[in-house]
């Protein structure tokens, strides 16, 4: 297991490095002049040149990239538009000339919103998706199974940007059953935090739960007929106990793997959900950065999201290896 763990973590580090290079290359190598955009339309030539030097854009791309990597590890000092030095602490994701603050600070301000949203939605996904999949597998062929698969199909087909508005219209606007979605920090008021995010959680969770329900169902059905499950039944274990203790563990590996991969989709969904419900999270920051040509923030958010995805995929792989020893050999 130690060897596998080490190899997997090294792989993750290599992937992260490649992602950093790709994201950096894609955006800074873009022909639109970041210095001109950062400076704004009112800048004269000298100011643009100062910003260019401050951003390091007059350096060759390779050295810019190493500066960026160095900033990630040790932090660095970046010159603002007016030439004043800004200390950007490690891990420095660059400096946003649009927001006039280090990208990491801008993200950190908004991260609680996105984490709360994604975390709550993940809980909904697991409860709803895995729960529905388990019930459907154990009650295979019954009305409950068909009803659940209908719900899955709906969840897989409906879009956040439609369902979100429709539910908001009926549950908030017409009937007032739920409060208007908003973000209240968890530390300030846990009750209002949950109440304000309930609808976004349900929408984001429902839309993403379908894949899990489906996979849970098919994995359970497949594993149910494995030899070891039959052995467990044969030695006299009850149906439910066998399935929860033996089948579920055998069926869990692909689910954990899917969970790791779904984090990326969950982030994407969280961005749309934030836009639908007007929550000011990292997604809103990223969308604004893209429309406002704020390249450092775009690269920063892409990297941060990729970092989360890589970490989750790696952790998921390690959990799978722990669940299923055969994986460690490959």
């Amino acid at each position, binding site marked *: 297991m130690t060897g596998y763990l080490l190899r997997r973590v090294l792989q993750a580090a290599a992937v992260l490095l*490649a*992602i950093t290079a790709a994201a950096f290359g894609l955006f800074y190598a873009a022909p639109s002049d970041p210095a001109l955009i950062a400076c704004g339309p009112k800048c004269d030539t000298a100011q643009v040149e100062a910003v260019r030097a401050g951003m390091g854009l007059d350096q060759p791309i390779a050295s810019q990239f190493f500066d960026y990597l160095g900033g990630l590890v040790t932090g660095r000092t970046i010159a603002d538009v007016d030439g004043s030095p800004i200390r950007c602490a490690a891990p420095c994701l660059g400096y946003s000339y649009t927001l006039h603050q280090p990208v990491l600070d801008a993200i950190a301000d908004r991260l609680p919103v996105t984490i709360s949203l994604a975390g709550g939605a993940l809980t909904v996904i697991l409860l709803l998706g895995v729960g529905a999949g388990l019930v459907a597998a154990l009650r295979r062929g019954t009305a409950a199974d068909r009803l659940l698969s209908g719900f899955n199909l709906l969840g897989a087909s409906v879009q956040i940007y439609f369902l979100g508005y429709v539910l908001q*219209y009926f549950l908030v606007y017409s009937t007032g059953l739920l409060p208007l979605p908003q973000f209240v920090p968890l530390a300030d008021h846990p009750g209002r935090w949950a109440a304000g995010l309930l609808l976004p959680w349900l929408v984001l969770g429902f839309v993403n739960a379908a894949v899990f329900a489906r996979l849970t169902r*098919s994995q359970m059905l497949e594993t149910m007929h494995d030899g070891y499950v039959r052995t467990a039944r044969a030695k006299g274990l009850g149906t439910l106990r066998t399935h929860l203790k033996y089948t579920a563990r055998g069926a869990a590996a692909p689910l954990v793997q899917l969970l790791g*991969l779904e984090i990326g989709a969950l982030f994407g969904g969280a961005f749309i959900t934030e836009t639908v419900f007007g929550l000011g999270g990292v997604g809103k920051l990223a*969308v604004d950065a893209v*429309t406002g040509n704020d390249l450092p923030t775009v690269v920063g958010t892409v990297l941060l999201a990729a970092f989360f995805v890589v970490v989750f995929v790696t952790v998921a792989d390690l959990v799978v290896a722990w669940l299923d020893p055969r994986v460690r050999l490959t």
Partner: protein
Amino acid sequence: MAAPSPAESPELRPAAEAPGARHRGPLAAALRAFRRDRTGMVSLGVVCLFALLALAAPLLAALYGKNATEHYGQDTPGLLSPEGLPVLPNGGMSGEHWFGVEPGLGRDVLAQLLYGMRTSLLIALASVAVIAVIGVVVGITVGYLSGAVDRAFTFVCNVLLAFPTLLLLLALSPVIQTRFVGPRENEPAWMQFTVLIMVFSAFGWVPLAMVLRTAVRSLREREFVEAARAVGASRRHIVFRELLPNVWAPMLVHITLAVPGIVTAEAALSFLGVGINEPIPDWGRMISRGSEVFYDDPTYMVFPGVAILVFVLSFNLLGDAVRDALDPRTLR
């Protein structure tokens, strides 16, 4: 295999196993299985209807007497209130404008829906075509070659899969646009389409290539490939003539399910404001506009929302039916 449950009546089993049925190969068996799948046939019908509507949009619009770009609401008094909201109830639905008029600009909703379908379908089908070519070539080649190529492929896939897709799509389309269009220029319509197709293709081939790689890795150990190798067939022959015909089933399933994914991703991009620009009709942008006036005129958003829902739903059902028809082992 488990004993069939009571729900699985004999006529649901693949027709090829029925006594007296002539064996006409896997394709015919799959077709027969598909024809027996009522949900699959209905969803295929809906998908075909969508495609037909999109193809015939100019004709239908001519018959209906409206186009997607004219601002009827602003030109004809009595359709929109001074605030830009439809005067008639339900979003201004009337005999003249069946699905109502757009708040603000006053365009005809039905005409916009029809033309918006063209936008969605064109982007999705073109992207899927590119994805299929790249995915098949890369997946089969890598699966057959293995070794260093395989390790490099796995690494590239890991990198591409780790990128948060939507965020990257979001970030990438303006970048590609600026590469080809000057900052002050107005980008031509075909450019927006090309950019989106490029962006979707750049990431869409990865899952398909991974699926095919796995399929080929198990196929290449089979006797028929060994036999081909033994009689001295070239690598190219083995890859394209021996392996390719055997992986079309997973390919077809994957491609059917990729279309709704691209349609919704495109709509999401347009919803977020970085997809297709005015004045090209687009479902995602209609939803975005609808969200601005949702409480005053909810009808406007219902049409594109339901259109996307029905479209994606029928494609998902079609994909399931294709999978079931091609793979009789699928547990239902």
